[in-house]
């Protein structure tokens, strides 16, 4: 990998990490309300997969999707404005943290129903297949989704109808308060894909390089074969499921143990990133976030007279 590629990967992860930390701060300051699910710890997955997708490809994500949206190219300002409920947010202030959308970036949402995005994703792929666009649809979901009926319904149809879908399971070991081993008889999620004759693999979700290589190959394979592929990324979230989750279900020692695998610090050590190189990236990230928050603060609220807009076509 070139120095540029290495710094690009680091920049991706640091931008997401600092963005999510600012979100936590703004939530505590009551600027962001409702639910907030942070991506801190899992940055390597988005940083590894998203760059492998082309502009014509589509993305469907879950409610922990700030990192994916940011790295797909949706401006931090538009995302933060959405968190603040402003009209210039990327969803017009109508969706909030869990429902980031951008037609321009073919970012078809944050979906807050666990597994809810899976059927939509294969539909998008079906349209691409029938129109022969060779585009790939990449759908992100947590291991919790594997317990939903529509997870299996979706994998079966994707395989049966041979649809160009890349399933990316971000296995962070906990579905809200339930450890994986307490909810799945077969905790190795990627093995479930085999039951539907979908090729699959598992990769260290804390290693951005491993994720990137696996994702790049997977995207090309899906594009060439038109058949679905299943990529399970073993990862971990350092913060609670959401802002008022007291984390009674896991002990501090386990969290500390995973911190040793922090995707950013391990990457910096492994790639011998110098303090100066890191400082530049940190400064750029801080500036981006400060500007985003200023924009979001100043952005207007949507007039209440527009309440009934966006229900049906104008």
């Amino acid at each position, binding site marked *: 990998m070139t120095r540029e590629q290495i710094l690009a990967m680091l920049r991706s992860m640091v931008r997401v990490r600092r963005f999510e930390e600012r979100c936590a*701060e703004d*939530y*505590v*300051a*009551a600027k962001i*309300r*409702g*639910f907030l699910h942070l991506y801190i710890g899992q940055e390597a997955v988005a940083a590894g997969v998203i760059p492998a997708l082309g502009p014509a490809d589509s993305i469907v994500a879950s409610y922990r999707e700030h990192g994916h949206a940011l790295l797909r190219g949706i401006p931090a300002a538009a995302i933060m404005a959405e968190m603040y409920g402003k009209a210039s947010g990327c969803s017009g202030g109508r969706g909030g943290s869990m429902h980031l959308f951008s037609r321009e970036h073919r970012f078809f949402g944050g979906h807050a129903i666990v597994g809810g995005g899976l059927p939509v994703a294969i539909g998008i792929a079906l349209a691409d297949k029938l129109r022969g666009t060779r585009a790939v649809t990449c759908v992100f979901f947590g291991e919790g989704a594997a317990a939903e009926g529509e997870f299996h319904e979706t994998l079966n149809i994707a395989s049966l109808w041979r649809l160009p879908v890349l399933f990316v399971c971000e296995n962070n070991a906990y579905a809200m308060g339930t450890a994986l081993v307490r909810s799945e008889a077969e905790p190795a999620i990627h093995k479930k894909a085999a039951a539907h004759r979908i090729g699959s693999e598992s990769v260290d979700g804390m290693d951005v390089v491993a994720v990137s290589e696996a994702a790049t190959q997977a995207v090309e394979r899906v594009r060439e074969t038109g058949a679905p592929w299943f990529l399970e990324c073993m990862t971990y979230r350092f913060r609670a499921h959401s*802002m*008022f989750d*007291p984390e*009674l279900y896991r002990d501090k020692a386990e969290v500390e143990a995973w911190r040793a695998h922090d995707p950013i610090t391990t990457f910096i050590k492994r790639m011998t990133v110098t303090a100066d190189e890191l400082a530049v990236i940190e400064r750029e990230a801080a500036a981006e976030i400060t500007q985003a928050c200023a924009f979001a603060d100043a952005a207007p609220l949507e007039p209440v007279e527009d309440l009934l807009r966006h229900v049906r076509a104008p």
Partner: protein
Amino acid sequence: MREIRMPSLGADMDAGTLLEWKVAVGDKVARGDIVGLVETEKATMELESFADGIVDALLVELGAKVPVGTVLARLRDAGEAAIEAPVIAPAPPPPPIPVPVPRAPAPPPPALVRSSPAARKRARELGVSLTGVAGTGPHGAIVLRDVVPPAPRAAPPPVRTPTSMRQAIALAMSRSKREIPHFYLAHTISMKHALAWLTEANSTRTIQHRILPGALLLRAVAVALRDFPELNGFYIDDEFRPSEEVHLATAISLRTGGLIAPAILDADEKPIDQLMAELQDLVVRARGGHLKSSELTTATITVTSLGDRGCETVFPVIAPPQVAIVGFGAVLERPWVEGAAVVPHPTVVATLAADHRVCDGHRGGLFLATLDHLLQEPAKL
């Protein structure tokens, strides 16, 4: 100078209680350090610092419940001088929400006249009061039809048969012509004895209880039917069902156009005076639109009379599901053979239309003869 405030740790959190400080004044704090513990309804949560600095002042006592956003502590940068600041008293408890004093229950409304909205609206439009109006709706409620315009009204209402009635008549009559094989019989009856009896009977009655020929004819039909069950009943689901009772429907033409045929129930068991009173009541109520539905639907046979200014003979149409209808033309003076002489007699042409599926001309003829015979001895009716 930076502040540490009570964090908002949940969509439904308004306030939090400071349980514990993990730092003291003068301690060095780094971004992300846990500086204390806070209690929410849900659980005990760590209080995180989002800034580096030296604890300058702890502003809230342990155990104090303060709203989200309250400044709990102040941090100063390394070089800054400490500020002597009094410890802020715990925030005053939120003012008690005033409990509304229950108002005395409103006095019960004046005894309302129970009436439908449409009736009240019509009354407003016509400028009439509802008090004293007898309601024919459920539980005596005043409904639309009970609200009649004040008499007299300047402009006469346009002669317009309510379309629904016209449609109903059209439907019933066309069904009758389609399904019922009518046969018709006519018979001229002398009314000499009948009218003489009436004049004599009325002379002993007040004007209010005067009996009209129409009532006598109805009475005669009712009595005659006792011997002709095949003319009195219903033809339903391809079979004739004779009726025990005799409910005589009298066809009443309405001045606003159209026809209505309310029934006099058990006409065969009612003396002539009662029949007359009921007939008069029916006509008045029919014209005012105040008929009960049972009166409209239970007739077993119909009698139609064109009255004293109509024509000589009527050939009526049976009203399904009935099986017969009796008609009377106008009572007119006609030449009548008495012994060897021809003398003028008041006479009426009685007609019968009957359902050939149920009975034949022979029986129909006997019925009219019986009617004739009864009218020759009016006193017995």
